[in-house]
């Protein structure tokens, strides 16, 4: 056992609890990757094991920020899902999608580019899964109307959602988790990630133009089908739509100012969800709440407890020491290792469990580096900030690397197969991996230039 170097820094023992927790953690991750059992079931069972074997006390799992469930993440996710579920029947998403297709004047590539931008923007404001659930059906309809292959549109939609989601705190679950752990606010993400995401989107549009631009052709009479659609028909409930937009406006404004107002993002979202439920005048909240993606929520809760277990026994500390040893405490090297490792790891593993593990690891690393600091001073140490951004960029953009890299990809591939157009794992990767490498490469240049050369 190589405990000497570890114990020299800050002592912990590789005892039975350490190995038990490590085995639970590794087995849970192995089964999640293998997809033999539903990931939510494994997360809940693994969490149950951590508790019943007394690795974690129930109190630690439920009430301690360090080892337990991050309720800020849970309530932010639930609240945003409730808001979207209330908005969906108004027809606003159908309206946006049809309007976008008409803006493209029925030109296949123009529509693809506009859809990519709309998907990226929606993904930045909603989560990626919701966005692709709302965009993919319309994409398939438009492809049928134009009699073109829907696969390029669907792939483009998945890639754009993963790139766009990187831009904001609420855009992708890794960012929600990172923000909560590092106590970063909405504007921090806009300020540090949105600029590079905008550049990535411009490059992305050029790339898809080169890949698919010439291949997508249609006839003039088919373009007319698109132009004959009336987007106003989509709006089914204008009153509720107005209420929804007002509440969404309040929530987004709340996100922009939550740092200044000292609210957590979940507070803003929960208030918005409560207000919109009240305004909807529904007497049956049951079906709105039932539509919350509970498996995802429980997946998060289970993971937080499993990771809490390995944090408590010291596995995460051991891992962070290995990284520090590898990079010799050089923060630029650390950022780069984390960004590229995160990208490839997220392409293989779900980026949610990955970030759930990396978050405490980075906090631990910071404690080794600056043992005298604590709280925000530690979490947002100027030298640590590029590491957080590298984690966010790597984990979010890495999602494009494979068909299972992000939940949005899984949904797009599933819908495509249902529509009779199978996208094989290799086909997804043939496009996704180069796009992932290109965007992560751009992120590398950005982090290096902004934080290590220009230092702004």
């Amino acid at each position, binding site marked *: 056992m190589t405990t000497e170097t570890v114990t020299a820094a800050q002592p912990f023992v590789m005892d039975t609890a350490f190995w038990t927790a490590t085995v639970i953690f590794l087995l849970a991750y192995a089964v999640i990757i293998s997809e033999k059992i539903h990931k939510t079931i494994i997360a809940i069972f693994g969490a149950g094991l951590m508790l019943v074997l007394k690795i974690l006390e129930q109190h630690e799992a439920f009430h301690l920020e360090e080892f337990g469930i991050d309720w800020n993440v849970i309530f932010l996710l639930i609240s945003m899902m409730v808001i979207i579920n209330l908005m969906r029947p108004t027809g606003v998403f*159908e309206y946006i999608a049809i309007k976008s297709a008409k803006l493209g004047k029925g030109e296949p590539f123009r529509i693809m580019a506009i859809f990519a931008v709309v998907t990226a923007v929606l993904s930045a404001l909603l989560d990626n899964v919701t966005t692709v659930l709302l965009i993919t*059906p*319309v994409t398939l*309809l438009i492809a049928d*109307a134009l009699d073109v292959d829907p696969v390029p549109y669907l792939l483009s939609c998945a890639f754009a959602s993963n790139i766009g989601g990187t831009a904001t705190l609420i855009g992708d679950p890794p960012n929600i988790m990172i923000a909560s752990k590092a106590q970063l606010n909405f504007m921090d993400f806009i300020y540090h990630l949105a600029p590079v995401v905008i550049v990535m989107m411009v490059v992305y549009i050029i790339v898809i133009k080169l890949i698919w631009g010439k291949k997508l052709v249609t006839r003039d009479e088919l373009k007319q089908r698109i132009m004959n659609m*009336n987007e106003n028909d*989509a709006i*089914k409930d204008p009153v509720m739509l107005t209420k929804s937009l007002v509440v969404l406006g309040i929530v987004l404004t709340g996100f922009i100012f939550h740092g200044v107002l000292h609210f957590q993002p979940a507070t803003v979202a929960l208030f918005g969800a409560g207000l919109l439920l009240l305004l909807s005048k529904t007497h049956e909240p049951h079906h709105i709440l039932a539509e919350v993606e509970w498996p995802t929520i429980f997946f998060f809760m289970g993971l937080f407890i499993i990771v809490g277990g390995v944090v408590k026994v010291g596995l995460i500390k051991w891992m962070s020491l290995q990284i520090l040893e590898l990079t010799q405490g050089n923060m630029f090297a650390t950022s780069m290792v984390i960004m590229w490792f995160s990208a490839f790891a997220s392409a293989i593993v779900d980026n949610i469990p990955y970030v759930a593990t990396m978050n405490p690891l980075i906090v631990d690393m910071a404690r080794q580096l600056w043992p005298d600091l604590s709280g925000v001073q530690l979490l947002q140490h100027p030298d640590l900030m590029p590491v957080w951004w590298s984690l966010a960029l790597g984990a979010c953009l890495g999602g494009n690397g494979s068909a299972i890299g992000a939940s949005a990809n899984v949904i797009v591939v599933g*819908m495509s197969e*249902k529509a009779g157009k199978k996208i094989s794992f290799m086909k997804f990767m043939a496009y996704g991996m180069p796009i992932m490498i290109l965007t992560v490469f751009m992120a590398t240049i950005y982090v290096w230039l902004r934080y290590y050369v220009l230092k702004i």
Partner: protein
Amino acid sequence: MKAKDLMIPLHECLTPEMPLVQAAHLLKTAKRGEEIVGVKGLPVLDQSGKMIGFLSIGDILKAVFPSYMSLMNLGDFTWDGMVEDFAKKAACKHVSDVMTTDIITVPDEAPLMECVDHMLKSNVKRLPVIDKTGKVVGMLYERDVFYEITRAMDKGAEGVCR
């Protein structure tokens, strides 16, 4: 009255490999007793005569209905000729691709109330009737159950509902 007393004996059936276009024609020209009247659904039997599915007009509508349409409200954004286009594409699908495999059957000895129970609880209008060996011997239609009920009502109402 039992299921076997009211059922219409089975003349036609479908096979899983049959193309949808052929199956649709069979539904259109199926006999009911001696008359060619068409039926709204037929059982799908494998080579050994075992029922493995059921194909109804509803399944054929589903075969031309793109899966993405059920995910959002897109009915307003369809175009003239869309159903026809999808029907052309669906013509060569196999019966096994679109048939319903979760089927409710009744034994030929089942009392009529058991059949009504299935019809109401599972919201089906046709029940395949099977014999002791598991073979489909006929179809029980909602309409025939209704006729039986009217006959019984007529008897019961004589001299009562005045």
